[in-house]
């Protein structure tokens, strides 16, 4: 079990409140990890810190030996949201963009997935349905070969059939030994998918194996999460 990510003493403040407060942890490779917590900004912040979209106020994050801030996006894929894409871009423009900037990007694969999704590469992305926009973001992300995939609520506002297809799509396309960290509030739906979970509450972190919780406490992750959040509220 390799340690992929090493997080040491990171803190992040917004408007004088600690959104992340002195957090340290080591995350191994080859895991699908759910990032849970009731406050959206904490989860988003952690993902953005890991993706080098934001800098920690204190502490450091390394992937392997290298600081995240010095990695130039190699080995880290941050799943885009549809609003992040330029509104004049067609699907083939976005694919060209990725091909130009990411060495590990497979444009042929991206076009193939696009066809399999039933999407026309010449379609303007902003004109697609919400589900299809999400599919575009996913096909861009998973046509890259990376060690870490960061996803912020990828299943938001999507119908159940599509959710199932996306789950399968991710499992089909994740490289061997890659780690996925996925922020979500859909614990009941997705808990079976997660090897581990990170619970972020009041700036502090709980990081556990899902099957271990089930084995030692006979609880579902949903139940465990509710319990942890209640305890945090009481303190």
């Amino acid at each position, binding site marked *: 079990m390799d340690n992929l990510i090493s997080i040491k003493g990171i803190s992040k403040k*917004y*408007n004088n409140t600690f959104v992340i407060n002195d957090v340290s942890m080591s995350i191994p490779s080859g895991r699908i990890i759910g990032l849970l917590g009731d406050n959206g*900004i904490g989860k*988003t912040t952690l993902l953005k810190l890991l*993706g*080098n*979209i*934001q*800098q920690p106020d204190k502490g450091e994050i390394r992937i392997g030996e290298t600081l995240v*801030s010095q*990695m*130039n*996006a*190699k080995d*880290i894929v*941050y799943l*885009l*949201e549809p*609003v*992040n*894409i*330029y509104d*004049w871009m067609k699907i083939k423009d976005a694919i060209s*963009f990725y091909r*130009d*900037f*990411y060495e590990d990007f497979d444009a042929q694969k991206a076009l193939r997935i696009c066809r399999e999704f039933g999407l026309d590469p010449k379609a303007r992305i902003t004109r697609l349905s919400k589900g299809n926009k999400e599919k575009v973001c996913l096909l861009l992300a998973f046509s890259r070969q990376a060690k870490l995939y960061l996803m912020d609520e990828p299943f938001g506002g999507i119908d159940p059939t599509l959710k199932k297809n996306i789950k399968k799509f991710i499992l089909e396309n994740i490289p061997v030994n890659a780690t996925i960290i996925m922020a979500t509030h859909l614990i009941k739906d997705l808990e079976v998918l997660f090897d581990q979970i990170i619970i972020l509450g009041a700036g502090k972190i709980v990081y556990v194996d899902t099957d271990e919780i089930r084995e030692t406490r006979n609880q579902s992750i949903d139940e465990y999460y509710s319990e942890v959040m209640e305890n945090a509220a009481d303190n």
Partner: protein
Amino acid sequence: MLQTIKWESIKQFHRLKWIILGYAVLLLALTLIPADWGKEGSAASQMVLMFLSIVMMFGALGLSLYPMYNMVSDFRRKTYTMDRITGKSHIKVFLSKIIMNLAVFFLAAGIVYIGTILMDRFSTKTMNYFTYTLNKPYLTIMLEMVLLYPAIFLFSYMSASTHRFFRNHRMIGTLIGVAIISAITSYFQFSGTVYYIIGFIVGMILVIASGRMADQQFEQHIYNY
């Protein structure tokens, strides 16, 4: 670097295409309007010409301010994430933008020049429409519009955005920065070749310094999340 320039130019094209189209149509209209419109003395035609003059003026003004705005406009949009996660250095990005500024400058100069010639057809002894006089040589204007002023604006914005207090009040911070730098530079009076060389060097230094600040410390304002 080439990729950065490529995508920067595609992006600018999409951003400016309607304005360029509009002005092309305007210039075309100006060629088609008969020259006696101005000389005829009809109030309506004079008003139209006046109006078109004003449109030309705003265009020239807008396009001359655009290079400054161009340096920081991406930071204020959600599309910044798409660029940021590629990991490309901000110095490359800013240099690409300077190159695009040059292109926009020539475009604006072209529109103004052609517009002036076209509008000159309508002038009478009493009425002059869209004309311009330059109080500085072309090269100076080019240096200032394409590199120096945008660099000052960018550097102020970047300093404000990475400052603990001003990061939440970037516009004020930027204006303060611009004011400070303007005050400092007004002490120095250079002319001719010296001005060009120093202006170029100062501009490049500010751009590169901004690039490093951006790589190491820049984050979007919190309202962009």
